[in-house]
């Protein structure tokens, strides 16, 4: 008896569900970053607005990358609904703290998918996921550094203006020197 499930798809039903769930999370993150960009722009933090706009674009790319993988492997990729976005923030700092929370949630989610790949010995999907895991190192680093700016620079006086300028200079390289 042929294994029709395998003939039609490289990924298991469970992994397909998890990857679709991740597609939804990336879409939500992208939309959430846009909401943050809007808040920053309206409150005069134009560099941060640009920063979050770029982040939104990156998350969208992640979503499409996952979407294509599910399709390429014979699965059914689901275009997600996005709801429950946070548009209002109490402070400039809260925006960045929320961004860090979002990135941590994304990393945790990828770890769960990676764990399932190991359990199923799906090394093909694992190899695909490695790019995202490496990407999350950068995403979390940048988000964490941004929050730290609030303590390093301070918010008093022109502090928030300085923070807004410094946000654009955050960069990550995994190589030393």
């Amino acid at each position: 008896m042929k294994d029709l499930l395998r003939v039609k798809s490289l990924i298991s039903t469970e992994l397909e569900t998890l990857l679709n769930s991740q597609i939804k999370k990336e879409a939500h993150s992208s939309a959430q970053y846009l909401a943050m960009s809007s808040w920053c722009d309206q409150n005069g933090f134009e560099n941060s607005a640009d920063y979050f706009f770029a982040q939104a674009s990156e998350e969208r790319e992640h979503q499409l990358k996952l979407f294509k993988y599910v399709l390429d492997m014979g699965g059914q990729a689901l275009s997600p609904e996005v709801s429950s976005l946070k548009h209002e923030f109490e402070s400039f700092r809260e925006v960045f703290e929320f961004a860090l929370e979002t990135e941590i949630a994304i990393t945790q989610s990828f770890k769960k998918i990676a764990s399932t790949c190991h359990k199923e010995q799906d090394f093909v999907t694992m190899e695909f996921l490695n790019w995202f895991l490496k990407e999350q190192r950068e995403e979390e680093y940048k988000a964490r550094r941004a929050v730290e700016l609030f303590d390093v620079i301070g918010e008093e006086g022109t502090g928030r203006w300085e923070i807004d300028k410094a946000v654009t200079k955050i960069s990550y390289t995994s190589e030393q020197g």
Partner: protein
Amino acid sequence: MDCTSFIEVFSNNSGVVYQCDNELCFYVEFEGRRAKYSVRNLKQLKVKLNNFKIEEIFAVDSLNPSGTEIVTISTTNYCYILNPLQIIRFRELLAQTFFNLHVNQVLRDKLHYAVFA
């Protein structure tokens, strides 16, 4: 029907599911009705059946007090009108079917693909 390529995956009192290796599809007989499904469509059918919240049908303020549900799968012409008991039976039939398909997957991985390694 080509009997050599028609293999019973699972059967119970409610119905039977066959796999056809020649057509790479499944034939589902449920309460006397036969329908042909691709792998994708069979997965969709399982998801749709599992998504019904049976307990809500019996709630006092239920929006669907009759409990009747209509199940259709896009790209097929089949339509089921099911009561709660039939939904439960159909779920059981497909749950066991997918369990057996996964067992087959494990066996094939160990016995068949291992030969190529």
